[in-house]
Every structure is written in structure tokens, then in C-alpha cells.
């Protein structure tokens, strides 16, 4: 019999007794009296309450006790005593056993529903998966179930269709809605060479892509696995409740016996009265609320964050976030875009850029890429005698004249005074300056900088608001680093750090308090694992899922603050749940024991049963409410960021 059926049966059979109780003050009684109560309660005990007794007995034999033990002992005591009372002509309280059973089952029915609610995040993610894909086999498009799609398959996606697996576009252009996986609410424009993620929706154009990851290797499958693990992980704070849970039930039983002894022997209360207090103590004590406090909040918190594209590895990470003092960022690729861009051109813009781009076209230096990109589709003159001078620049012959692009140090001519001054200004602003030289004169300057991401300043401001100290770690020299840091609002910079020394720098920072390190997860693995919380930023399908305690699916710096905020909120909720669960028992048990009877405060066993049902229900509800808690960092519409 399911919990639901047991509840409805119990409720139905209890109703006549409830009516009886309500009519009593008016001197009215249902026909049948004690005999009716006996029959109804016996049915409830036999069907609705029996599973409690079964479990309690089975657990008892294993030297264990749980909530079922308490319910079973409470209801059995009331029931058996009433049988004895009826046989010897005393007052009965069958209805206590009946009502307690009904209320406890009511609590369980709701709780079951809430628990399912809390844990369905993974199922929801699974439902996102496409069921079929149109695979081009032998030149013909064929509909295949997802399980038959293989790596290397060419897959066609029409507008409105789901992209089946992870891959790279080989033909077509379209806007793709990736919100369901990355949390990015704006559709992303994609063309040939761009990665696509399985389970996202192709919106505007027809695409053809090559499958690269299928089955358990897809991003979605990995996210699901991570969320599943996180939801079932333990938070260290749970150790406390584990300890309490181990001794809780036996201690309550002892308290109940003491309650009976004090009332009956010391206060000379009749056996029936003393027994009612003892039963109330047994019934109100609820170990379930304690047991549910942490796992349900953990489940809801990690599930919600996953929907926002934030993967939190486990409860330990969640708890650690709460202690953070410092958030250290890797500069290149984290705070900055990682792709240098031309910011200023001094001199005749067209002439300087075309000449520089013509020379740099054949170079693969990142600065060269920036210059060529800046030149756009301008016509570039032909270059003869091209030569690269490692780390300094390039030279060649353009229009019959020798030309040079590179650092001032090796330039063939000295800088005119005005250009020299502008160059100094630009360098002060942490820009790399190259000069462009042709024939006998310096034509102009080009300033290049790896620029901060557009969202960096907002992200840093959010962290400061949360009371955290942002720190930037970089290999750049102090001046350059400080210039970038100023732009985004970071006050503390550790410059000149070699790539291999980032972990050591994190260690130094840890002397002042727990540190989170934000990096890209591929080059920063040692620093990520050294930090108390490693936050790995991903982009597209290249996400190092194992790299950090927290993984940000989309490459948006503002998610760092959001992840920290959500983790803190979840952990706060866990503490709140535990607090109420403890307080509830600490207050409830003395009241049930009749400690405050002189103040007119007492609990009958049935009220205690209702209170017990309510306590676990309120803990689970409080956890589920985490789903709708307001988050400052949550963005309804994120601007499309490159």
C-alpha cells in the first residue's frame, strides 16, 4: 500500500472520531461510542500504521531506531493502553493513535512530493536531449535515433530543431539558443567553424555540423553527471546531524520514560495522564527534519545553479565558498578577452594600418593578428623581402621602400618628439606600442592591448559588494597590470608571476584567509586545485569539468559573483533549516512533556503528531523555496558578449 493510500484510509477512518470530538462539548455522541472507536482505530493500526511497526521492529533487531520507531511506539502505546482501559472500564484515547497516524502520513505524503520536486533537476536536464538527428549517410539525410549517431557523422539541423550532439559547424549560419545548457539567454550567432552544443535549439538558418562528442561525452551528459553527484554529495556540516541522528531516537525514548515516571510517581498523576505526556514526547520528536535539512537544500541549490550555467561540484565546495575572503583572478583570458586588439592609431590612420597589416599578414604573432584584424578589408600593398625579427618586429620592402613594424628599440629611425611623447602616454596606459616606419620616416604608432572583457568591471563591483577582495594575478609587469586592474576596479595586483608560480601565489594569498581562484581550467589547473575554491571558466564545449570546484559553463565573468552568491544563499538555508529543526525539538519536547502545563501550555499526542508532520514539511518547503530566492547577480537578459 502506498503512503498516499495509507493516508487517505487513515483520514477517512479518523473522520468519525474527529466529528465525535467536536460534538463532545455539546453533549452529543456518535452511536457506537467506544466500540466504534475501537473498530476504526484497529483498522487504522492494521493497515495505515502497520508499516511503521514493521520497520520499527526490523530496525530494532538491527540495534537501530528511526522516526518509524517513534511513531510505532507512540501509536502502539496509545492503542494498547486504550484496549486495557476499555477492558477495565477506564477512559480510552483511541483517537490519539488514529490522529497521530493520519497526521504523520499527511506529512509524509507532502514531503514525498516536495522531495521529488527538489530532485528533478537532473531529469529536467535529461529531457532537454534531442531524441533523433538527421544524419547524412551516403549523401542522403536519414532520421536516426540519438543512440546511433557516431563521432564524425555529418548532421543537418533545420530551423527550430534541436542540435543533437556536440560538434563543429561545417556549413550554414544561424542563431542558436543555448540558454538551456549555458544559461545564456540571448541567442548566439554561429557560422562555419563555430562549436555547437547538443540539446541547444537552432533558430534561424539550416546548419550542417560534424559530430565530435556523442553519448556520455557530450557537454550536457557531463553536466548531468556533475549535477547528479553534487545533489547527492554531503556537506561537512551534516556530520553534526549524523551524530545527533545516531543517538536521537533512543534518547527520546529515555526522555519519554522519564516523563512518565515524573508525572506518575512524583506528581501523582493518573497512569492515563502520565502516559499521554509520554506519548506526546515520543511523537513530537522528529529526527526527519534534521535528516532532511541539508540534503534537500543542497539538491535545490545545486539544481538551480546548474540551470544558470553554474556547476557546483559538491556540498564541501558550497560550504567553503561561505568562508571566502579573497577572489584571485588570472588576468589573461579571464579578466581580459585574451585576444589583443588595436586601441589607438597615431598618424594617418589608413596609411599606417594598411602598411602595418601588409607586413604583419605573414606573421603569426598575436599582435600581428590584432593589426591585420584592425585593417579590416582595406586593400593591402604587396610586400617583398619579408623577414621577421624574433620578438622585435618584421621588415620588408613596400612600394620599393624599406618598411618596418615593431618595437621602438630596433627601429631604423628615432621617434620624432611628439610621437615619442604619445608613445610614452600609451605605454603608461598599459598598451603595447609598435611603430610603423617606411623609407626615411616614422609614419605613426599603433597601440595594442589585451582589453578587459566588457562585463569585467560589473563582475568585480559585484564581488566587492559581497565583501570579497578581488586580486589579479598576472605575468605582466606591475605598470601594465595596474593599468588593467584600474580599468576594472581591482585594487590589488600580483604582477610578474610566471605561469608555473600561480599556485604559489595563491598559497601566499591563503595566509590572509580562504581564496578562490578564477581561471580557464586548461592552463590553470595547479592554481585551481591549490585554491580553497577553484572556479573554472569554460567557453563553448571546451569545459574542463574536473578542473574546479565550481565550473562556469559560459565565459561570463559575472557568473563568479552569482556562483558565490548562490552558494552562500544555499549554505545559509542549510543552516537555517538545521537551526529550526533543532529548535523545534528543543522546544517541542519540553512542551510535550508537560513542563509548561502550569502556564497553560500543553500538547496532546495528536497535536504533537501534527507538529511533527509540519516540521519536516517546513524544512523541505524552505529548501524548495531556494528555487525562487532573489539573486542580485541574476540577469534576465545577458548582453551578447563575444
Amino acid at each position, binding site marked *: *500500500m502506498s*503512503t498516499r493510500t495509507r493516508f487517505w484510509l487513515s483520514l477517512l477512518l479518523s473522520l468519525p472520531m474527529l466529528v465525535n470530538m467536536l460534538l463532545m462539548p455539546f453533549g452529543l455522541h456518535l452511536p457506537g461510542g467506544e466500540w466504534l472507536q475501537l473498530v476504526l482505530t484497529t483498522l487504522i493500526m492494521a493497515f495505515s500504521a*502497520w*508499516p*511503521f511497526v*514493521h*520497520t*520499527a*521492529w*526490523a*530496525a*530494532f*533487531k*538491527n*540495534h*537501530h*531506531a*528511526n*522516526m*518509524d520507531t517513534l511513531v510505532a511506539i507512540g501509536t502502539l502505546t496509545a492503542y494498547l493502553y486504550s484496549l486495557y482501559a476499555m477492558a477495565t472500564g477506564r477512559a480510552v484515547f483511541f483517537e490519539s493513535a488514529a490522529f497521530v497516524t493520519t497526521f504523520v502520513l499527511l506529512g*509524509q505524503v507532502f*514531503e*514525498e512530493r516536495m*522531495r521529488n520536486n527538489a*530532485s528533478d533537476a537532473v531529469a529536467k536536464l535529461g529531457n532537454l536531449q534531442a531524441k533523433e538527428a538527421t544524419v547524412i549517410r551516403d549523401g542522403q539525410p536519414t532520421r536516426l535515433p540519438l543512440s546511433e549517431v557516431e563521432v564524425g557523422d555529418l548532421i543537418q539541423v533545420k530551423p527550430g530543431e534541436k542540435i543533437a550532439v556536440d560538434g563543429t559547424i561545417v556549413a550554414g549560419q544561424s542563431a542558436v539558443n543555448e540558454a538551456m545548457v549555458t544559461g545564456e539567454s540571448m541567442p548566439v550567432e554561429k557560422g562555419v567553424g563555430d562549436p555547437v552544443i547538443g540539446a541547444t535549439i537552432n533558430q534561424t538558418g539550416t546548419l550542417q555540423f560534424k559530430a565530435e562528442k556523442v553519448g556520455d561525452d557530450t557537454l550536457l551528459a557531463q553536466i548531468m*553527471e556533475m549535477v*547528479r*553527484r*553534487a*545533489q*547527492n*554529495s*554531503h556537506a561537512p556540516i*551534516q556530520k553534526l*546531524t*549524523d551524530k545527533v*541522528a545516531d*543517538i536521537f*531516537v*533512543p534518547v527520546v*525514548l*529515555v526522555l519519554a*520514560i*522519564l516523563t*512518565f*515516571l515524573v508525572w*506518575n*510517581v512524583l506528581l501523582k498523576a493518573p497512569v492515563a495522564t502520565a502516559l499521554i505526556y509520554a506519548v506526546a514526547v515520543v511523537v513530537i520528536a522528529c*529526527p*526527519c527534519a534534521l*535528516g*532532511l535539512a*541539508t*540534503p534537500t537544500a543542497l539538491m535545490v541549490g545545486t539544481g538551480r545553479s546548474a540551470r544558470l550555467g553554474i556547476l557546483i561540484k559538491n556540498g564541501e565546495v558550497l560550504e567553503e565558498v561561505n568562508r571566502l575572503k579573497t577572489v584571485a583572478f588570472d588576468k589573461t583570458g579571464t579578466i581580459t578577452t585574451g585576444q589583443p586588439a588595436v586601441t589607438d592609431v597615431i598618424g594617418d590612420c589608413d596609411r599606417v594600418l594598411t602598411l602595418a597589416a601588409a607586413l604583419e599578414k605573414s606573421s603569426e604573432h598575436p599582435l600581428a593578428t590584432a593589426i591585420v584584424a584592425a585593417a579590416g578589408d582595406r586593400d593591402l600593398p604587396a610586400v617583398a623581402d619579408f623577414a621577421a625579427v624574433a620578438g622585435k618586429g618584421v621588415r620588408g620592402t613596400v612600394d620599393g621602400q624599406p618598411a618596418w613594424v615593431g618595437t621602438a628599440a630596433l627601429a631604423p629611425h628615432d621617434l620624432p618628439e611628439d610621437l615619442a611623447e604619445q608613445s610614452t602616454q600609451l605605454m603608461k596606459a598599459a598598451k603595447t606600442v609598435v611603430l610603423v616606419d617606411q623609407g626615411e620616416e616614422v609614419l605613426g604608432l599603433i597601440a595594442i592591448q589585451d582589453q578587459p572583457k566588457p562585463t569585467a568591471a560589473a563582475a568585480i563591483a559585484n564581488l566587492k559588494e559581497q565583501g570579497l577582495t578581488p586580486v589579479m594575478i598576472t605575468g605582466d609587469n606591475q605598470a601594465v597590470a595596474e593599468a588593467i586592474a584600474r580599468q576594472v576596479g581591482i585594487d590589488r595586483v600580483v604582477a610578474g608571476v610566471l605561469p608555473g608560480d600561480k599556485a604559489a601565489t595563491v598559497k601566499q594569498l591563503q595566509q590572509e584567509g580562504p581564496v578562490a581562484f578564477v581561471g580557464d581550467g586548461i592552463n590553470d589547473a595547479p592554481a585551481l586545485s591549490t585554491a580553497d575554491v577553484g572556479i573554472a571558466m569554460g567557453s563553448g564545449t571546451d569545459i574542463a569539468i574536473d578542473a574546479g570546484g565550481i565550473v562556469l559553463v559560459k565565459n561570463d565573468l559575472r557568473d563568479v559573483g552569482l556562483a558565490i552568491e548562490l552558494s552562500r544563499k544555499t549554505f545559509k538555508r542549510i543552516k537555517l533549516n538545521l537551526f529550526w529543526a533543532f529548535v523545534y525539538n528543543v522546544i517541542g519536547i519540553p512542551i510535550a512533556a508537560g513542563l509548561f502545563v502550569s502556564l497553560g501550555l500543553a500538547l496532546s499526542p495528536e497535536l504533537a503528531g501534527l507538529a511533527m508532520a509540519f516540521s519536516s514539511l517546513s524544512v523541505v518547503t524552505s529548501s524548495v523555496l531556494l528555487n525562487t530566492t532573489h539573486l542580485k547577480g541574476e540577469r534576465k537578459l545577458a548582453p551578447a558578449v563575444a
Partner: protein
Amino acid sequence: MTQVVTILVGLALIGFILWWFFGKHEVSSAAATVTADRQAADVLVDGGYKPEVVTLKQGVPATLRFTRKDPSACLDRVVFPDWGINRPLAQDKVEEITIDTSKPGEYEWACGMDMFHGKVIIK
């Protein structure tokens, strides 16, 4: 006289409860049965887990077969936090759970409410 008896019975009950639940009692444990290249163990779910400790051999693919006889909602799930396994247990049906035995160690499992516990030892 009745009062003395009541007190004695009450104290005896308290003593029994403390001894029964907190005294040292042997935990039921079992090793898995190993066949050729697989190992398996049955776990009965009834007022807890029987056995409570299962010992598995490292490196041999393993299955734990959980059978829930207990009608209580408390035991209707089994959770292995280390492996992210959270599986509903239908009453009177066998639920097979594959265990990753690649790393030696002790791995706890618990019921959905974290009230009953069991342990897998891989060595």
C-alpha cells in the same frame, strides 16, 4: 509499592534501551561472492541494511543487489554520495547497482533521509 515497581520497571527499560542501542553490537557484514570476472552481493533492506558492511575486491566489476522488504518511506531510496548514485528502491523488487571498484577505500551509503547507513569496503 506500585510506585516502587513503576520506578524499577522504568529504570530497567531505560537501561535496556541504552544497552541495546548504544552498547557494542556486532555489525552484520559480508563479502561479495566472486564468480570468474564479476562479484555481487545481496543487501536486504528491512529496518536498515543487511549486511551493513559489504567487502568487495578491487578491480573486479561489482553489483550490489538491493531488495527492499521494508514498507517505510524512510528507506525508499539508496544514496551513494561518493558516486552520485541516488536510486529509488521499489518494494520487493531487486535493484541492481553497479559499483566502481577501481579505487580502494570505504564508501558509505545511506537511505534517502540519511538515517540508516551501510558501507562498501573495497580492497
